[in-house]
C-alpha cells in the first residue's frame, strides 16, 4: 500500500555512462558556447584548452566514482543524495584547478590558469557546464532516456 521511489541510485557503470553522456551532450557544446562568448576572436583556441580542462575534471571524476560507489554501499538505501553529488562535483573541480595552477598536470599549463583572471575564467566555465548538467540529473535525462532511471544511470534497454 505504501509507495517507494528513488533519488540517485547509480551503479559504477551507471555513474561512468552518465558522466560521459553529460560530457558529450552538454559539456562539449556548452564549452564551445562559453569560449565563443568569452573570447570571440580566439574562441577555437580557448575551446580546445577548456575542453582539455573539462576532460581532466571528468577523468578525475571517473576515478573518484570508484570511491563513491564504495561509500554508497555503506548506506542502507544504497543511494546517493543529490547534495552529495553537488558537493563532490565542486570538490573534483577545485582539486583539478588547484593541481593545474600548481603545475602538477603536464598537459595543462599553469600560466593559462594563473592569477585572478584564470580563476574567474575557469570557474565561470565550470559553472556554465556544471549547473545544466546537475539539473539534467534531476529528471530531464529521463525525458530522452526513459529507461535510465531504472537502469541505475546506464543507457540502453532494460
Amino acid at each position, binding site marked *: *500500500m*505504501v*509507495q*517507494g*521511489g*528513488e*533519488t540517485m*541510485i*547509480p*551503479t559504477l557503470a551507471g555513474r561512468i555512462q552518465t558522466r560521459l553522456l553529460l560530457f558529450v551532450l552538454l559539456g562539449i557544446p556548452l564549452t564551445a558556447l562559453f569560449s565563443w562568448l568569452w573570447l570571440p576572436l580566439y574562441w577555437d583556441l580557448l575551446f580546445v584548452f577548456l575542453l582539455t580542462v573539462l576532460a581532466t575534471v571528468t577523468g578525475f571524476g571517473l576515478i573518484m566514482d570508484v570511491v563513491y560507489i564504495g561509500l554508497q*554501499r*555503506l*548506506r*542502507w*538505501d*544504497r*543511494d546517493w*543524495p*543529490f*547534495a*552529495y553529488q*553537488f558537493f563532490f562535483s565542486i570538490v573534483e573541480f577545485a582539486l583539478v584547478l588547484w593541481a593545474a595552477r600548481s603545475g602538477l598536470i603536464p598537459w595543462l599549463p599553469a600560466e593559462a590558469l594563473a592569477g585572478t583572471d584564470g580563476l574567474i575564467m575557469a570557474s565561470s566555465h565550470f559553472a556554465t557546464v556544471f549547473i545544466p548538467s546537475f539539473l539534467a540529473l*534531476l*529528471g*530531464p535525462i*529521463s*525525458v*530522452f*532516456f*526513459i*529507461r535510465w*532511471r*531504472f*537502469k*541505475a544511470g546506464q543507457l540502453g*534497454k*532494460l
Partner: protein
Amino acid sequence: MTVLLTFNVIELDSAGQPRGPGAPLEIDETGTISFGSSSERDIVLEGDLISRHHFDLTVSDSRVMLTDQNSTNGTQVNNMRVGLAELGQGDVIDIPGWRLEVTSLSFGVTEPETTVSPQGFPHDVFGDDTLVDVGTLHSHGYPIEERKFCAVGGGLGSFTFVDHLRCYGVPSSDIAVIGTEKVSYATYKRYCRDSQIPDHERLRSNSLSTPDNIWGFPGYASREAFGGLLRGRLGGFKRIFQVFGEPTLAESYTPRAGDVFDSLDREERRIDWPAMHRQGQARCIRKLNDGRYAVAYTMRDPAVAEADRRRIIIADVLHLATGYPATRFVDDFQTFIVNYPDHRHMVHNAYAPHDQIYDAAEAANGPVYVVVRGRGIVASRIIQRLHEARKRNPQITILHSMRSKLDPTSGARYGRARRQVRTNIEIQPFNWPKSCWGGDLRFEYERADKAKRGAMLTTLGGTTTAERSDWIGIIERGTEEGWYKPVYGSIREILPHDDSPDKVMIRVEGEGGHRAELIADYLVDCTGLISDITRSSLLNDLIETYSLPRNHAYARKGDGFEKRGPTGLDVTPHFEIEGLRNQRGRVYASGTVTSGGPYLAVDSFLGLQYSALRSTDHLVTEGAHGVKNLGPLRSAGQWLKWCRGAKP
C-alpha cells in the same frame, strides 16, 4: 455468486415509525450501487430530505462499504452518523424517511467451482475447454468486442500499463480496460482514507514516482514548489531542498495524496481513459484457438440493461493487475470478530474504515485506552491521528503493541549496511531500500536464484516507518508525559473483558514467557493486509486451469531461510505470465499479484511504472503487435505533448 446481501427496506413516517413491514432488497453482485432521490441512481429512494446522490454501497468479495456522498442530511449506521462504514449483518442504515436493515450478508466460498458458476455465464460459453473455439464463442450471442489490448483490473496497475501503451503511440481504439471502479485510483484512495491519509496528508512515495507521467519528470516536488510560487507562496522551495538533500540533510519529500489524485485525473482525460474503460467485473479468461484470449465480464454500468450486461472482450494481449483480492486479517483478529460479533466495534483493522473510534474517543469524557498493534508506517499515522484526538480528549492513552524491543543496533543488516532504528521502530524512507527500484539491489535481485531472492526479500523487506520528526516527537513527548506506552510481546488472544463488557482484553506474551493483559477500549490492528491471490476467483481459476506456477514467501530460520507458502504469480523479468502464452498472444501482470517475483517493489507507484515499461518494451522487442519503440526523440516528443496536455 460471491456475495449475497439482503436488506429489509422500510419506509418511515414523519415520526420515524415504520409505515409497513418493509420490502426485501437483494444484491448478489459485486460493484458499486448508488442510492438517492435522483432517477439516475441504481436504487431510488424518494423524499424531500434525501439527496439526489445520498450514499453508495461498494460490494466486494469480502466486504460491503457504505460511503455517504456528502448528503445534506447525512447517513446513519446504527444511530451514528458516518461518512464511511463497513456493513455487517444486523446493521441498520437510517436516512430521513427510510430504514434499511441488513438482514443477511454472506460471502461465497472461494472454491472456483462455486465462483465460476457451472451453469451460467461464463461457463455456458467456455465449457471445460482450456482452448476455446472462436466460432463457438460467437454462436452464443453475447456481445463481443475485439481489441488488440485488454487490461484487466482497472486500478493503478492497469492505468500505468495503458498509459505506457498510449505514450508509445497505441491508439485508444485498440485498448479496452475492465474495472469495477470508474477512476483508476478509486481503490487506492479508499485504502488511503481508511488508513487515515486524507487528501491533504502525504503519501509514502517520492517525488519522481509519478503514475501520471511515465518519465518521472517533472516530479511532484517541483510541481508543488512552482505551483506554490504561482500562488505567491515560497514554502514550496522547502520541497525542492528536500529532494536535493534527501535523506541526509532533510526529511524525505513525499507528495500530498490529493495532488497525486488530481494529476491522475488529468492524465486519465489526456489518454482517453473513459473511452477505453468498461465498468464491470472480469469473470473468467480463456485462451482462444486463434492465438488470442477471451475475457468474460459482467458490466456494472447502470445505463446498460440487466440482460445486456454479460459480455466478452477478445484481445491479442492481456494485462492483469487486479490488486489485493480481499483483505484478510491476521488470525487472532479474525477469530475475535467471528466469535464476538457484539464487540466488533472495539477492534478495527487500520486499512478498514474505523473513523468512529476517533469520534468516540474524542467525545468521551474520561480515560480512553487504545491499543495500536504493529510498527509500520500505518501505525505511525494512526498514532499521529490519536495524538490529534488528544487535543479534544487529553485522557486518551496509546498502548503500542510491538512484538519485541528493538535497540538502536538491532536493525536489519545487508552487506555492510545496517538499517537505522528510532524509538523501537526500523526506519526506512520507503517500503524497500531505494536501490531496489532502479539501483544495484534491483540488478542483484533480478540476477539471484530463488533461494537468494528469498533471503533478500526477507532481509530487505520487513516492517519499517519513515523518519518523520513529528512522529518521533509524538512518541518522545508521549513517553515523557505517560500517554504513550510501548508494550512488548506477541498477542496471544483477544477477548471481551469479563467484568466490563465495553472493554477488550488482550493477552500478550513477551520474551521468556512473561505474560501481560491489556485492557483497552479499542484495538487498531496495523499489521497490514494479507494478500492471497487465490481469493480472487478470476486468478484462482486461471492458476488451476493452466497450472500456473507461483512465487513463494521465505522466512528466517536459524542462520538460513526457509521456503514458506505461495505468494504471487510467477512472471518473467518482463512481467509476462509464461504459462499463458498462446501462439502470438501474451499475458502480462503487475502489482501485488506478482509479489515474490523478479522485482521487489512491485506494490508501489514506481514499481508499477517499472513493470509497465518492461512489458511494453517486451512487446516492442517481439514486434508482433505493432508497438513502436520509444527512442530518445519520440520520447521527448511525447513528453512535450504531456506538458501541453495534448493527446498522445
